[in-house]
């Protein structure tokens, strides 16, 4: 390199540039990392405790992949029957599949194998629980609104795929409990009209249980499903970066800015540190709380079962559906329509799709095409919050149904009564939850309304000269006033005039009518408390002696 013509600073930077910079230069010349870092290295991330829920999902996903790769080193996805000769005495001499045998080997002979197995399983449960709560956060704060609807769908797909990845993984050890779950799935497939038996025979390579399903589930569990999920996670994160994170209303926070800490260093340290916190906590849980002890369940035999059989929690609601459904079977021109199983099988995706499509329904009702980066407080959107709580109630009712035997034995209840409770609550529960939630939201809105106009109750009682006692109200600061009034309130959409400006009758479509109705339900008089106006505020605060 000739440095003769360069200025002094140039030559200095070339000769004495630190090693890190030289490596970065090399990479920049090939990958363009400086341009990438320019927009991202000091990217701002707002801070709120609820924003870490998604991080829990991301980190538990990484932990699952790391531990899962380790487990593949020892696990044999084969259903060949072998006799057990390992150190666990109660099972010695028993016939079991190689899958079960190798899982026993991991649990009892590989040093640390049990720990990794348990971390893998615990992380999977936490992954799904994390996604569930993260979705609630996004739902109740309206973070799914434009421009984030697609990311909501990505997240939804991750949740659904996570359920199936969990189910296939849970089935791999071929133990008595998971085998029972697989049998349940086979029975559900058989109920599908016309093609049910074919679906079952194609999945199991013949009659249940056959010798193929562990190997087939294995490739889905370690390759196909996580591959798709990894792609979705990356897309999800890219969109989070591209959209920039949402934030709650507050002083200095607008729809056109994002206020918080830069990626480097604060967010890197906090988020990176949080990965270790999550991993650390899951490790300790796995050290002290045994999960899926396959040795105590034994290998799968289609003619054996244990009582209290339960799927992992995220499958519980489908279990509830199947348990409380009446056993309807209809003869259909010489064929059997197994409605008692098929209806739950069809309601199962419906429960999920209901939340997937919600953002599109709401944006259709509001007709709002603007971008929204300021989060809603759940109380300020009573109808949406009501729907969300109704959905959760639905889900929880089904979870109770899924564990009806455990409820019966633990709380000394009649299983008949629980089943009927679930059947009724399936329809009534969400409605009640919706109404109650909406009332609570409106109550909270009224409280905000009072707080804005009359200030905060200080708890200080003052006695006036003429003997009257009053409570001192402290006016809110401008920050608080702004925060409490920053939310937008929609006006219900109205059906346009039935005649246009020329007096020609216009056809009012059914769509429009439905929409106007929905809009009225969402934002009509009973569905929100009109927030105080500046005039009201001034009128009240300008007078004296008010309280």
């Amino acid at each position, binding site marked *: 390199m000739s440095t003769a013509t360069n200025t002094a600073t140039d030559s200095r930077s070339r000769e004495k540039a630190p090693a890190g910079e030289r490596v970065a230069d090399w990479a920049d010349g090939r990958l363009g990392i400086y341009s990438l870092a320019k927009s991202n290295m000091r990217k701002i991330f707002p801070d709120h405790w609820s924003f870490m829920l998604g991080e829990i999902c991301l980190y538990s996903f990484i932990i699952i992949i790391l531990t899962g790769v380790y487990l593949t080193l020892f696990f044999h996805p084969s259903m060949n029957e072998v006799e057990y000769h390992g150190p666990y005495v109660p099972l010695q001499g028993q016939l079991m599949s190689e899958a079960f045998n190798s899982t026993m080997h991991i649990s009892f002979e590989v040093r640390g194998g049990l720990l990794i197995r348990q971390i893998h399983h615990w992380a999977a449960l936490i992954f799904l629980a994390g996604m569930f709560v993260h979705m609630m956060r996004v739902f109740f704060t309206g973070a799914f609104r434009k421009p984030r609807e697609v990311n909501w769908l990505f997240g939804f797909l991750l949740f659904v795929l996570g359920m199936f990845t969990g189910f296939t993984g849970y089935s791999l050890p071929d133990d008595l409990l998971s085998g029972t779950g697989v049998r349940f799935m086979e029975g559900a497939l058989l*109920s599908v009209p016309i093609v049910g038996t074919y679906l079952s025979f194609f999945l199991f390579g013949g009659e249940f249980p056959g010798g193929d399903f562990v190997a087939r589930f294995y490739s889905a569990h370690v390759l196909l499903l996580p591959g798709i999920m990894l792609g979705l996670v990356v897309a999800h994160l890219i969109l989070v970066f591209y959209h920039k994170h949402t934030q709650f209303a507050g002083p200095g926070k607008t729809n056109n800015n994002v*206020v918080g800490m830069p990626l480097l260093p604060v967010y890197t340290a906090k988020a990176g540190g949080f990965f270790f916190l999550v991993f650390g906590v899951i490790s300790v849980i796995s050290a002290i709380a045994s999960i899926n002890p396959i040795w105590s369940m034994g290998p799968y035999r289609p003619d054996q079962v244990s009582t209290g059989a339960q799927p992992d929690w995220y499958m519980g609601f489908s279990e509830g559906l199947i348990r409380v*459904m009446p056993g309807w079977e209809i003869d259909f021109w010489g064929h059997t329509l197994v409605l008692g199983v098929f209806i739950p099988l069809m309601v199962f995706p419906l429960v999920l799709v209901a939340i997937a499509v919600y953002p599109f329904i709401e944006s259709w009702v509001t007709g709002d095409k603007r971008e929204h980066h300021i989060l809603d407080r759940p109380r300020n959107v009573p109808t949406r919050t009501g729907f969300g709580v109704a959905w959760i109630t639905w889900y929880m009712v089904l979870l109770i149904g899924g564990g009806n035997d455990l409820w019966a034995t633990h709380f000394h209840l009649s299983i008949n009564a629980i089943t009927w409770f679930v059947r009724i609550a399936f329809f009534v529960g969400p409605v009640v939850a919706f109404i109650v939630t909406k009332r609570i939201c409106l109550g909270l809105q009224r409280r905000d309304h009072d707080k804005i106009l009359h200030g905060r109750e200080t708890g200080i009682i003052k006695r006036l000269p003429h003997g009257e006692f009053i409570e001192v109200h402290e006016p809110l600061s401008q920050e608080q006033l702004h925060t409490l009034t920053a939310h937008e309130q929609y006006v219900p959409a109205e059906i346009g005039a039935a005649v246009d400006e020329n007096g020609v009758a216009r056809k009012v479509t059914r769509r429009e009518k439905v929409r106007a109705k929905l809009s009225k339900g969402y934002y009509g008089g009973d569905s929100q408390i009109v927030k105080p106006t500046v005039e009201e505020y001034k009128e009240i605060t300008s007078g004296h002696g008010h309280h």
Partner: protein
Amino acid sequence: MSSQEIPEENLPAEQSAGLDQQEHGAVKVADEKNPFADPGLPPHEHRIQDIDERAARRSERTVALLFTVSMLSTIAFIAAYLAIPVDKAIYVFPIGHISALNFALGCTLGLALFSIGAGAVHWARTLMSDEEIADERHAIEAPPEVKAKVLADFKQGAKESALGRRKLIRNTMFGALALFPLSGVMLLGGLGPAPGTKLRHTTWAKGKKLVNMNTNEPLRPSDVAVGSLTFAMPEGLDEHDHDFQKNIAKDALMIVRIQPDDIKDPRELEWSHEGIVAFSKICTHVGCPISLYEQQTHHVLCPCHQSTFDLADGARVIFGPAGHALPQLRITVGEDGYLEAVSDFEEPVGPAFWERG
């Protein structure tokens, strides 16, 4: 499309920006005109570590201590991995007896990781700048001129491809692209055989002895006492057989003895041997094995979804999600005095399916 239906004035106005442009940290002035206006970012408040170097050094030591704990924990992990036998169990209150190695490895790994995390977070919270910064947002959608350029480019590209003009190419291309995935669909045919009538038959046949699942001995009528539940399989079935799992999934039988007077269903009585009745053990709901028997009522319960069947009345469903009664196997006693089947089940066992009829 729907935006046309709703006039813009129905959308709420955005909260006025107020003193938006105000510099961060500047002294804010109450807005006389609009008390609800955005006052701008509040001034930054210093933490003790920002103004007191001794407090900052304390934080530094705390972070360093956490990182040191992590290092020590990792060393402890390695020591535990090398030293503790894999089969050693210890008693830990209140968990009970657990694997010592699992406990030690999990706790040390957990502590090592948690300390790194706690150190990093503490570092970020106490020593890194906590001054909030505001970044501008930009509209996600492209500006109109970019959109116009892209549309023009696309039109140009489409025109140059002549896809719209040369219909023959277009149609045959769509045909070819639509057909070739069929090869993949065909290949899936190898996943399994057609069901045929396989679900209708079991191993049971005329003269097959009922073998006690626990003892592996053929059953005599005297082996079946009133009030007991016996599980049986057809003779000749061996655990070591290749198809054992597949066969037992359909063949599994449960046998009870009921006083003939108590049997309400006439066909059931006819198919029994002196009150000994044999029913399929596989639940007709989704195929779990039924395993709970109530002696007094002759009810059996599937532990998976609580379908309950009355064995004294043709095993009809009395509770739960099952859709039809358990199939009964017709049994008799052979010349040598053992219980045996008269024929295969007359209807398919297990969950219902479309072709069951």
